[in-house]
């Protein structure tokens, strides 16, 4: 027994991240620890969240067989979802402002890399892993028509790497680490996009690569400048020291570099040019995955830097970030929606709609009050659900019709009623009809605008949702009233249809039961506005 206890305390000491179990403590309660040893794994969940998909990616390459690689990727994805849900549960159990801190390799922050999970990034992690899992379920059937089966394993490897990168950006508490994971996710995203059916996918991926690299470079520059000023890379540490430094020119340039860099990844309005092409020509499932996660994580990074690192007083009161972001957000809401109305390809239309929806999220950020930020964060979740659901619907259309062009969707409402029903549901949510998730986010954004005393802004938010009515209803009219082309059409495969319906019913569910989304988002917003994390 005592030997066993010794062993247990040794393992605990042996250099892992459970920082709150120091050696003495472990020795005193050795027996207890021995009993807990199996549970110890659960203290490493933050590391597992990243390590699992990272290790599984090369395994996919080794497995080679499409079905096996998919099985592994699905398993890992579901496991990652389970982990992130557990983490979220734990963070929320810690109460307002609580956070889990995990020290990679046992190195103490600010020297070592810290994974720091609070209400905000636990929430984003759930979105990333959740969407990844649902989309993964739909992947094999949809990918068959777009990529030769013998190359599927590469797809799964890249997909897992992308998920690793996105989860890594989210979970880490280290600014430089954010850059590293951003590169992992970006590089694998380029690979994923280039796997599209047409050769245009390759140019789109290349365009994204050029833009993305510029974005990454700006981010790195910004982080470098921050390091120069403060001498630290840990986010918690950064924010403390930055508050002491105050607003000098270096900090201003750092903020500018970071905002510009992240805005490229986020596809904020004038920097969005890569997005419509990338989303249109990427394989359908890739679009469904990236639309719901990549831009969302970039939004998270922006929120994290603006509120946690720079802090509201610095970013808004002294550096007037809102003067930049607010007009851009409004331009995105109106400009991109208007462009969406004139698209001939529905998938491209949805891509433009994403640019517009990013405008709403950034608007929430720029309002910098609790309702507005809650709206932005809730929209992050809600938009992820509806957009990836809608893109899965596009996957159904692409599979059965061979195209997502508007004219080819003529009469599809009668020929594929279930798929079309899903589209209408997602569209209603995109418009923000009450009882759908879209309404909840808009409600908070409008409230945020009113609380900030900007009622024309509130009107603008609502007016721009009318543009969503226009572009969604254009599709509905063609699909419902236009005479269908001849030829028999089979129902979309259930393996895509069911995930799409899960996501879109999710938008309905989260339009009615908002305690999870709004509760978590408003907790995160309070945390962010309350000062340092």
């Amino acid at each position, binding site marked *: 027994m005592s030997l066993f206890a010794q062993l247990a305390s040794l393992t605990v000491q042996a250099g892992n991240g459970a920082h709150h179990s120091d050696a003495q403590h472990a020795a005193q309660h050795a027996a207890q620890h021995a009993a807990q040893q199996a549970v110890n794994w659960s203290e490493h969940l933050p590391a597992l969240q990243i390590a699992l998909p990272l290790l599984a990616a090369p395994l996919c390459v080794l497995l080679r067989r499409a079905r096996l690689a998919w099985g592994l990727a699905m398993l890992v994805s579901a496991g990652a979802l389970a982990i992130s849900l557990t983490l979220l549960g734990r963070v929320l159990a810690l109460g307002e402002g609580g956070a889990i801190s995990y020290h990679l390799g046992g190195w103490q922050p600010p020297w070592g890399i810290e994974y720091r999970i609070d209400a905000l990034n636990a929430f984003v992690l759930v979105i990333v892993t959740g969407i990844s899992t649902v989309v993964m379920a739909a992947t094999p059937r949809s990918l068959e028509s777009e990529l030769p089966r013998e190359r599927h394993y590469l797809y799964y490897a890249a997909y897992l790497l992308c998920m690793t990168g996105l989860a890594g950006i989210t979970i880490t508490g280290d600014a430089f680490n954010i850059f590293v994971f951003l590169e992992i996710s970006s590089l694998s995203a380029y690979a994923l996009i280039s796997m599209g059916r047409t050769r245009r996918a390759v140019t789109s991926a290349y365009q994204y690569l050029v833009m993305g690299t510029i974005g990454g470079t700006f981010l790195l520059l910004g982080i470098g400048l921050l390091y120069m000023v403060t001498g630290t890379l840990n986010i918690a540490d950064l924010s403390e020291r930055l508050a002491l430094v105050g607003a000098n020119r270096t900090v201003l340039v750092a903020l500018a570099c970071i905002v510009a860099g992240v805005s490229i990844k986020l596809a904020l309005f004038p920097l969005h040019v890569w997005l419509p092409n990338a989303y249109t020509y990427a394989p359908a499932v890739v679009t469904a995955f990236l639309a719901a996660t990549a831009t969302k994580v970039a939004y998270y990074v922006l929120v994290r830097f603006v509120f946690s690192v720079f802090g509201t007083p610095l970013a808004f009161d002294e550096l007037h970030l809102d003067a930049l972001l607010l007009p851009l957000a409004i331009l995105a809401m109106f400009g991109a929606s208007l462009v969406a109305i004139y698209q001939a390809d529905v998938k491209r239309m949805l891509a433009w709609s994403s640019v517009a929806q990013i405008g709403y999220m950034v608007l929430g950020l720029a309002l910098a009050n609790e309702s507005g930020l809650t709206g932005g964060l809730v929209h992050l979740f809600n938009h992820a659900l509806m957009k990836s659901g809608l893109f899965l619907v596009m996957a159904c259309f692409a599979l059965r019709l061979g195209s997502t062009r508007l004219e080819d969707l003529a009469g599809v409402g009668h020929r594929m009623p279930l798929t079309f029903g899903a589209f209408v549901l997602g569209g209603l949510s995109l418009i923000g009809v009450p009882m759908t998730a879209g309404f909840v986010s808009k*409600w908070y954004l*409008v409230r945020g605008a009113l609380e900030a005393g900007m009622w024309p802004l509130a*009107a603008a938010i609502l007016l721009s949702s*009318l543009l969503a009515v226009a572009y969604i209803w254009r599709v509905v*009219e063609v699909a419902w009233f236009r005479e269908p082309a001849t030829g028999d059409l089979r129902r979309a495969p259930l393996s895509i249809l069911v995930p799409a319906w899960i996501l879109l019913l999710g938008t309905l569910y989260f339009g009615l039961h908002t305690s999870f989304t*709004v509760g978590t988002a408003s907790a995160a917003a309070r945390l962010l506005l309350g000062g340092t994390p």
Partner: protein
Amino acid sequence: MSTCPILGPFLSEGPGPALFLAILWPLAGALLVGLASRLPNLRDTLSFLTALSLFAFVVTIILPAGRGSGDVSHDILEVLPGLTLRLRLEPLGLLFALVASGLWIITSLYAVGYMRGHGEKHQTRFAICFALAIAGALGVAFAGNVFTLFVFYEAITISTYPLVTHAGTEQARRSGRLYLGILMGTSVAFLLLALAWTWHLAGTTEFTPGGILAGKASPAVLTALLALYAFGTGKAALMPFHRWLPAAMVAPTPVSALLHAVAVVKAGVFTVVKVIVYIFGLDLMHEIGGDQWLAWVAAFTMLSAACVALSKDNLKARLAYSTISQLAYIVFGAALATDHAVLGSALHIAMHAFGKITLFFCAGAILVATHKSKVSELAGLGRRMPFTFGAFTLGAFSIIGLPPLGGSWSKWYLALGTMDVGDAGDAGGSGRPLMLGVLLLSSLLAVGYLMPVIVTAFFGQAEEDKQHSGHGSHGNQSEGGLREAPLLCVLPPVVSALGCLALFYYADELVTILKGALLP
């Protein structure tokens, strides 16, 4: 109530959940109708039975609850913190629910006759969407706060879109676009903003006797808010947001009945009345001058729509503009914000519903029997379709406001309202005789656009030739010249016309219900 085993659990905690049940009822009906889509007779029977049982339910359970003194409410769901889907029974809503569910019975009968007589396709989809719209209307009627009202208001818009575009033609699509564009556009851009703003100012959106906005903001802000509500409620068809209503006449006639009488426009004006009475409160309306400008906007709509109606030769278009004009009466009364005026406008919801549904039923019956839709073509038809045109005459007189028909009461109270507006603490009171004049002029215009129809039909000279071949859809040929539409197309307008007559004698019942809330 406790005798019913199915309803027992619902009603054990008071009549509150019954409100929710009344909304679920048509939804269940829609489900049954959908399941029976392959058996047309069963499907239509189910549709009718749903309507009948719903009305019975409203009359036997909700009406007594409304007459009682207690607070009847039911929370469905708390969607956001402090933003609850809540149903609450109050006299205005009770009246609207009675009207909507009552008229649904005859509309569902009529729909069977019309849709079959006219050989329309997709009758199942039609019946389902119809039931959904009724559920939405009941939701609007029982809404306990602006948020709930907004939710059901949008539900009506969406569920009636497939009805308006039922024909699927290019014209139907264009009308559908206008319909959805205006209704959803105004509601999202204005009504939702008003809702959020109300919440922001008052911290609640509950319908509360006496209003919730008094003293919460400056008169300028409240005026803007009132305008957002008045114009945001596109279903009230206040000019310039009225175009959807004439456009929607491409829909089958039962849909026109639904739009003009049962659910849609009534939901709109009901929203305006309810917001003015329970969100602003009558006193606040005078304080912020809403009783002046909004009343004049309504008066303008009233007169100009009536003038447009005069110029329309298409019967349904004429009736559509007549509806716009008559709806403005209701907004007008609510805007005047005196007890009598509000009473009059609430009454007018019911009176106009019965009158206008009769007229539309008749227009549809004429179309089914003779395929004629223009006023100028109706010459002599009155003698051959006496029941249809008899009903039309009663309905028209009620719309004009002649006794002994229901419409005369609402106009009477509205006229009283323009007279006693000075007593209600209003400063100016200057324009009020003028407003009375507007009311009378508008009634004259109603005579102008409705009487020619009757006169042409009964006394016009018909060209008697080629019309005997018909379309095989005329059912009643027993008497020589008599050529009515099928029984199910003729019976409903006769019933609703008799309803107009009955409302004259039993208006007191309605007044008693309404007075409970409006004249405390």
